[in-house]
């Protein structure tokens, strides 16, 4: 081996370890950058040479963990997107000390008080005031349900807009990475960014990411529809559906402009979660409250209309009659004029007893204990308690599922981090190691220089 070869060996080591220190420095500096993947330097002997060079600088990646993470992030996205709406429902309808349940109690308590003195105008006015309060509580509950449904819909539209931005950026990065590889460049930063975007996308909607083997990835919706192919991103759209009270349907538009309805296909991610929240528990709660309002008003009216007020009048409704249960909770109201005419309350079943009979009031009071709600399965009180329990169960279940999904994401994230993340201590060790190697290489060059000096002095 010639002295020049020794010099060349030292030089190669010097350059290789300088580059390695650069990589370790980048790793250290980027430790807190979201989505940054640790780069590893792989040394190799130079072919036909005794020196050393950098064989490759590799991003650490684990496709299996990424796939699991996407799925768990989709689950977490679905659960977390529901937390706000369910918490609001739980807070406003799940309060056991207020709301429809307690106004039912007060209404029937007033009715029982009236049974003892049916001609008492003050007691009649009290009953009507409690009835008005009950009606208002139904209206408030309906308004709460409607507001939460609308908010879920608005958030759905917002999430769809965010998702489109992510899809576009992934498509752009696909093109950029592909071009970079063609040009022989190093697209690690773009790959890191694309991984971050895929994680964000997974929170919005369930995805599958497939390697297209040209540097780009194909992103499929959970159901199999392509969302990103190469440099092309599909567009998600929301459009109000008049058949569903103007609530949004979600569509995907492909490159040819063909539009497909995805509303019932998306199960996970924030989009799936919001659809499930809006069309599931909120809609179901609204329907049950509507049915409760309708059943109660119908049952009460049926008795009231056959009775007689103290003025001898009969055939009057107590609540404004409703044709269907649809939107009954928001439509329920006291019959016009009743609130100003307490004598209209039909406490008696007979005209002869109209002056102070209470047999009809007794029958109306007995409604509290009859299975007249939910298809004659429950009393009105039991039905409301069941609605409260269902809201509570949904909110509680959602919290548990969100916690479980968060734990899964944390565990997988920790696993991914343990493989691809940066440890400052590790990098410091590497920097020290590379620095020592750099110093050794410098020593080789100085030694060669001394050898040259020795030879020149011969």
């Amino acid at each position, binding site marked *: 081996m010639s002295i020049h070869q020794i010099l060349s060996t030292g030089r190669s080591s010097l350059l290789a370890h300088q580059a390695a220190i650069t990589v370790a420095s980048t790793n250290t500096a980027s*430790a807190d950058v979201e989505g940054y993947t640790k780069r590893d330097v792989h040394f190799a002997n130079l072919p036909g040479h005794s020196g050393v060079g950098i064989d490759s600088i590799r991003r650490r990646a684990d496709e299996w963990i990424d796939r699991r993470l996407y799925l768990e992030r989709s689950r977490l996205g679905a659960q977390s997107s529901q937390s706000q709406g*369910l*918490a609001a429902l*739980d*807070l406003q*309808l*799940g*309060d*056991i*000390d207020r709301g429809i*349940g*307690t106004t039912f*109690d*007060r209404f*029937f*308590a007033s009715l*029982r*008080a009236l*049974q*003892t*003195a049916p*001609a*008492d105008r003050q007691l009649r006015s009290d009953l009507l005031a409690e009835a008005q309060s009950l009606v208002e509580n139904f209206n408030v509950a309906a308004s709460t349900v409607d507001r939460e449904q609308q908010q879920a819909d608005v958030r759905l539209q917002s999430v769809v807009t965010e998702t489109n931005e992510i899809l576009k950026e992934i498509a752009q990065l696909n093109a950029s990475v592909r071009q970079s590889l063609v040009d022989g460049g190093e697209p690690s930063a773009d790959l890191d960014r694309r991984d971050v975007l895929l994680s964000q996308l997974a929170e919005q909607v369930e995805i599958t990411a497939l390697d297209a083997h040209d540097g780009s990835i194909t992103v499929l919706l959970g159901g199999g529809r392509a969302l990103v192919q190469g440099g092309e991103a599909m567009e998600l759209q929301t459009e109000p559906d008049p058949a569903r009270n103007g609530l949004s349907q979600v569509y995907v538009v492909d490159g040819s402009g063909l539009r497909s309805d995805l509303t019932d296909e998306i199960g996970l991610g924030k989009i799936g979660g919001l659809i499930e929240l809006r069309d599931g528990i909120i809609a179901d709660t609204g329907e049950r409250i509507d049915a409760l309002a309708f059943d109660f008003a119908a049952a009460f009216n049926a008795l009231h209309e056959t009775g007689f007020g103290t003025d001898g009048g009969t055939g009057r409704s107590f609540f404004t009659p409703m044709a269907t249960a649809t939107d009954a909770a928001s439509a329920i109201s006291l019959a016009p004029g009743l609130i100003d005419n307490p004598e209209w309350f039909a406490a*008696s079943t007979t005209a*002869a*007893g*109209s*002056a*102070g009979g*209470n*047999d009809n009031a*007794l029958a109306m009071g*007995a409604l*509290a204990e009859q299975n007249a709600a939910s298809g004659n399965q429950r009393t009105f*009180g*039991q039905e*409301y*308690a069941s609605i*409260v*329990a269902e*809201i*509570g*169960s949904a*909110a*509680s279940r959602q*919290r548990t599922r969100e916690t479980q999904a968060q734990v899964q994401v944390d565990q997988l*994230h*920790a696993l991914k*981090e*343990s*493989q691809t*993340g*940066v*440890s*400052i*201590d*590790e990098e*410091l*060790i590497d920097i*020290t190691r590379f620095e020592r190697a750099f110093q050794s290489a410098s020593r080789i060059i100085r030694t060669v220089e001394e050898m040259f000096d020795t030879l020149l002095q011969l």
Partner: protein
Amino acid sequence: MIRVTTSQLHRSAFRTVNDTRLRTQEAQEVAMTGRRVNTASDDPAAAARARIMGELKSTAKSHQTSTTYGIARLQTAEDALAEVSNQILRAQEIALSSANETLTGEQRLAYATEVRQIHETVADLINTRHLGEYVFAHVNTNAQVFDSTTGNFTYDVNTYAEVRRAEVGQGQYADIGASASHAFAARTADPRSVDVPAMLAGLEAALVANDPDAIRGTIDSVQSGYDQVVGERTRVGVRVQRLRDAEAAAEQSVTVYTSLESDLVDADAAEAFSNLSMAENSMQAAVTVAARILGPSLLDVL
């Protein structure tokens, strides 16, 4: 080998501290409110049962209110009936005394004056009111039961003899009124029944007429009238007792349902404060451990 990265350490520390803070906040809420169920999601099954208990408690309270009102109403009626029976007893004494042939016309006229007063008193008592209602009225409790100017009842005593009922328990109903028909009126359904005001008017007329035979003729009806009033008073007493039983049952129900509701939603104070203390200790431990783990680094020694 499992690598532990810097961000893992920070994330883990953040998560642990955050979790313990959340648990502390939850424990604080329970300790501060004294309730472990504030909204349905805290314990859905307990919340649903608590709502049912709340409804049952409210129902039992309203039964208490109804029974209290009914008892007061019936006691007013009973007091009136007691006074009417006393008045009739006095009328009976007068009838017996004045039937004696030795009395003079003037003495009988004096008795007649007293019987007129008894008649008027009884008429007033028939129209006894409780909280503005005529307690012996059938349905129209805002109208007088007996019209003393005409000497007639204001409603058909033969058709309407039953009394007002009210719900005093779950599916239980009780009479909360007294019947003028049964107490004071002659009803075709009961041939022995006596029209008390008319009976007193008859006695008064016999006394004014100074007719011992006619006076003797009223003695049996006076006795029947007395028995009739006492009979209704007895029925009212039975009704009061029934209502007292219902009131006691309602009171017991309120206590039971309050206790059951409390068991479901209220927190045990000792448990709540010990949980709070544990949560605070956990939080302090998490913060201390996080500070200890995140501190050391090779940077400190290299």
